[in-house]
C-alpha cells in the first residue's frame, strides 16, 4: 500500500525539531524510517507531520565517557555492525547488529529509532536492557535520562512523553572479563523473533543479568541471574520464564526457555 498524506519537515537544529514535535499537530519522528515506513505504508499510523531528524548532525555523534560510551540516536545498525563507532561491549553490539533485519535495512535503521518504535521483538530493546544502558532524552523542558531496562512499557509503547526525542544512548563499558550470550528464535535470519534470550556475566563489575526478550510487551529483566548463569539448567530458567508471564507447557514458555538456555551456552 501507499502511505497516507502527511506533511514533512527536516529541521536543522534540535530546538526547531523539538518545537515541531511539541506543537499542536500529531507529529512523528522520522529517523531511518525502517519501522515507521512500513507502518505508514500499512496506514497503521496516520500522522499529520513527519519530523525528519536526518539533518541533526549532533544526533550522529559519539563520545567516550570513560566508563561508558555515548552513541547518538541516529547511529545506524550497520555502523555498529562494521565497527564504525566506539564499542563499549567487546564486540557484542556488532554481533547483535549483524542479526538485525537485512543489510539494506541496517544501512538506514537507527539505534534511537528502534528503541522509540519499541517493537518487543527488536534486538536493541532487549540488549540495551541487558547492558543497563540509559536513554538520553530531550524535550521542551530539558534533558532527562531513562534506564533502558524500564523504557519500553508495552508493545510499541515507551516512557517517552509527547514532544520528546531520544538524542542518544549511554552504554556502560564491559570489563575485560565480561562474557555475553545471545540467542533469538526466528525462522530465517532477519525476521522478527519469537523469543530472545540475552545474558551477561561480568564478575569484575558484579553484573550477572539476563533478559527474556521478544515478549508480548516489555522485556523481562532478571537483575540477579547468578543461579541461572551458573547452571544453565532447566529449573531456574523455567522459573524465570514463568515469572515473565509465560505458562509452563505452552509454546511460548518452551521457546523462551530454549532461547535463554542457548544464550547461556553461547556465553563468550
Amino acid at each position, binding site marked *: *500500500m*501507499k*502511505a*497516507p*498524506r*502527511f*506533511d*514533512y519537515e*527536516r529541521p536543522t537544529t534540535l530546538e526547531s525539531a523539538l518545537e515541531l514535535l511539541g506543537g499542536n499537530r500529531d507529529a512523528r519522528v*522520522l529517523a531511518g*524510517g*525502517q519501522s515507521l*515506513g*512500513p507502518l*505508514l*505504508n*500499512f496506514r497503521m499510523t496516520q500522522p499529520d507531520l*513527519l519530523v*525528519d531528524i*536526518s539533518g541533526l548532525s549532533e544526533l550522529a555523534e559519539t563520545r567516550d565517557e570513560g566508563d561508558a560510551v555515548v552513541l547518538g540516536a541516529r547511529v545506524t545498525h*550497520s555502523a555498529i555492525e562494521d565497527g564504525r563507532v566506539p564499542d563499549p561491549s567487546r564486540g557484542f553490539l556488532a554481533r547483535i547488529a549483524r542479526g538485525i*533485519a*537485512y*543489510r*539494506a*535495512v541496517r*544501512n*538506514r535503521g537507527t539505534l534511537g529509532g528502534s528503541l522509540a518504535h519499541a517493537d518487543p521483538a527488536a534486538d536493541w530493546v532487549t540488549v540495551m536492557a541487558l547492558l543497563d544502558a540509559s536513554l538520553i532524552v530531550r524535550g521542551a523542558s530539558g534533558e532527562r535520562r531513562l534506564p533502558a531496562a524500564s523504557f519500553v512499557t508495552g508493545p510499541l509503547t515507551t516512557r517517552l512523553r509527547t514532544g520528546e526525542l531520544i538524542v542518544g544512548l549511554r552504554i556502560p563499558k564491559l570489563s575485560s572479563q565480561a562474557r555475553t550470550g545471545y540467542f533469538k528464535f526466528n525462522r*530465517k*535470519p*532477519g525476521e522478527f523473533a519469537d523469543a530472545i534470550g540475552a545474558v551477561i556475566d561480568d564478575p569484575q563489575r558484579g553484573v550477572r543479568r539476563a533478559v527474556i526478550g521478544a515478549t508480548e510487551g516489555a522485556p523481562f529483566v532478571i537483575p540477579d541471574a547468578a543461579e541461572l548463569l551458573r547452571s544453565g539448567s532447566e529449573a531456574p530458567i523455567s522459573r524465570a520464564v514463568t515469572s515473565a508471564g509465560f505458562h509452563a507447557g505452552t509454546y511460548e514458555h518452551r521457546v523462551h526457555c530454549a532461547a535463554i538456555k542457548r544464550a547461556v551456552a553461547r556465553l563468550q
Partner: protein
Amino acid sequence: MKPIALTVNGKSVEASVQPRTHLADFLREHLRLTGTNLGCEHGVCGACTLMIDGAPARSCITFAVACEGADVRTIEGFDEDPLMDALREAFSAEHALQCGYCTPGMLMSARDIVTRLPAADEARVREELAGNLCRCTGYVGIVRAILSVLEQYRGARLS
C-alpha cells in the same frame, strides 16, 4: 508538494514531490526508471533494493522527499559497471533468474556482498541474501552465481 534535488544515476534531478511518495514510485512514475521493482512495499521482500550513497537501501520505505542531496543508483545506473556485468553474466550462466522480478534487487545485494565481504563463503552469502526473496528459481543458482563472481573478484584483487 516539496522541492527536492538529488542525483540519480549520476545525473542531477530536481523535482517537486508529495511527502508520501516513496523513492521507488518517484523513480518509476516520475523518472520512468522502471528497473526498480516493487513487491511487498514494507521492506521485507527486497525487490526494490537500490543504492543510496553507495549502500543498499529499500526504496519502498524511503520517502523521496527524504532523499535531498542523496546519490541514488538504480539498476539502470550500472550499465557500464564491470562488476555488475560479471554478476549479470553469472546470473545468466547459473540460471539465477526465471521471471526476473527479484533480479534488480538481488543484483544490488549481490554487488554489496562481493564488495563488502570478499571472503564470504556459501553460508554467509545465504545469510546476506535473507532479505531478498525469490519465489521461482529457489536460490541455488543465485548463490552459485554470486560465489563464482566472488571467486573472480578475489582473483582480480590478488593479481
